[in-house]
């Protein structure tokens, strides 16, 4: 599969605050990625650096095979982006804004725009400044989807939407994901947003992508292991990122289960239990 985004040694700091630290990340075509990070982890900084909206201090980013600092307009037209905050021209009506934006693209799906406008009940005669935050966000999403880009990047897209709007937006991503050539990245700090739609999850922590894997693998590998034993202090759980003990039990969260070890302990008469964890718990453990 082709690589859609290749990032190497990306660094960025604000004044003395280092946000991205020699971050490496490679994204393949067809990936639907949930980018998780705590508030302030630098998700927006990373997205802005990828798109060269707010350039990195050092490192390189290749987008659809081109250096992100010198993108051709043909490549730019293959990218869709929804910022966290509405920075579109606010004094235009929705209708005018759509007409204005349309001029920049060779390809524009009018019926898709019309369908989303009616589904999301947007009054196109209203000025952007008159829309609620949620409605404004929906317009931005429509604008990002209208030219049917190959790469879509959403920065906290669901943040301003109500539960029904979130669900509907996620449904739209599901539809896009059905086309396996599209690459989608959306940042969020809400794990439930990505559990249904993402096939991969990336965790941004301390300036780096500390974990990037198939969502299914993450759920299957990062689990809680408990061992019941008379001598708990003699037990060391392999691949554990943290362990705690009480009376006759050792518990640990592991990044992978060592089946050989499990078998061995069981043959010695210990009871080894494995419990799956929700993505939210996994996220909290990995960024603790």
């Amino acid at each position, binding site marked *: 599969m082709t690589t859609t985004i290749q990032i190497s040694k990306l660094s960025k700091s604000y004044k003395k605050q280092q946000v991205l630290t020699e971050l490496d990340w490679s994204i393949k075509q067809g990936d*639907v990625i949930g980018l998780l990070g705590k508030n302030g982890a630098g998700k927006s900084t990373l997205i802005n650096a990828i798109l060269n909206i707010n350039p990195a201090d050092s490192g390189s980013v290749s987008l659809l095979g081109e250096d992100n600092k010198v993108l051709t307009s043909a490549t730019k037209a293959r990218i869709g982006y929804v910022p966290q905050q509405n920075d579109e021209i606010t004094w235009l009506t929705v209708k005018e804004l759509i007409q204005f934006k349309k001029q920049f693209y060779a390809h524009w799906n009018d019926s898709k725009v019309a369908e989303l406008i009616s589904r999301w009940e947007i009054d196109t005669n209203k000025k952007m400044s008159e829309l609620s935050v949620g409605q404004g966000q929906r317009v931005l999403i429509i604008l990002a989807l209208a030219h049917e880009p190959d790469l879509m990047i959403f920065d906290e897209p669901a943040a301003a939407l109500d539960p029904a709007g979130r*669900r509907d937006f996620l449904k739209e991503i599901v539809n896009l*994901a059905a086309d396996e050539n599209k690459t989608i990245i959306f940042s969020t700090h809400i794990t439930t947003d990505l559990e*249904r739609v993402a096939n991969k999850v990336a965790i941004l922590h301390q300036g780096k992508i500390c974990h990037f894997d198939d969502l299914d693998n993450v759920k299957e590998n990062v689990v809680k292991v408990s061992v019941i034993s008379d001598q708990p202090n003699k037990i060391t759980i392999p691949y554990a990122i943290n362990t705690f003990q009480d009376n006759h039990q050792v518990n640990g969260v592991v990044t992978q289960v060592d089946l050989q070890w499990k078998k061995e302990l069981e043959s010695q008469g210990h009871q080894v239990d494995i*419990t799956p964890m929700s993505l939210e718990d996994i996220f909290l453990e990995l960024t603790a």
Partner: protein
Amino acid sequence: MIQFNIEASSGIPIYKQIFEQVERMIANGYLVEGTLLPSVRQVANNIDVNPMTISKAYGLLEERGYLTRLRGKGMMVAHQSEEKSKKEKMMILDKMIAELVSDAVQMGINKQELLTLIADKAEQLNLPDKINSQG
């Protein structure tokens, strides 16, 4: 259309939940040989899940012999041999019993108490001692 009951926030991957639900529906006879399953797209849209997840579940079900791929038509429930389905049923029960026993341990129930409970329940539901095999 068959309904899947997905818990997105559980620790169990969604493809696995779908796999297990189809597995159970076939084992308990709800899905019989020749039944066509809804398309990947239909299921994905119905439960708002990434289509790749559904493909993965269907692919695995095909690999394990539960489903057969019909060109241009989708997935159909495959013929299950008597011997194999008995084995599968035992495996499913084994998994459920493992959960039950683990819960019992957590509650501090001992083996005898648990076995008595199961025997009583079997009695109540008129579970026969032996089923005459019909194969």
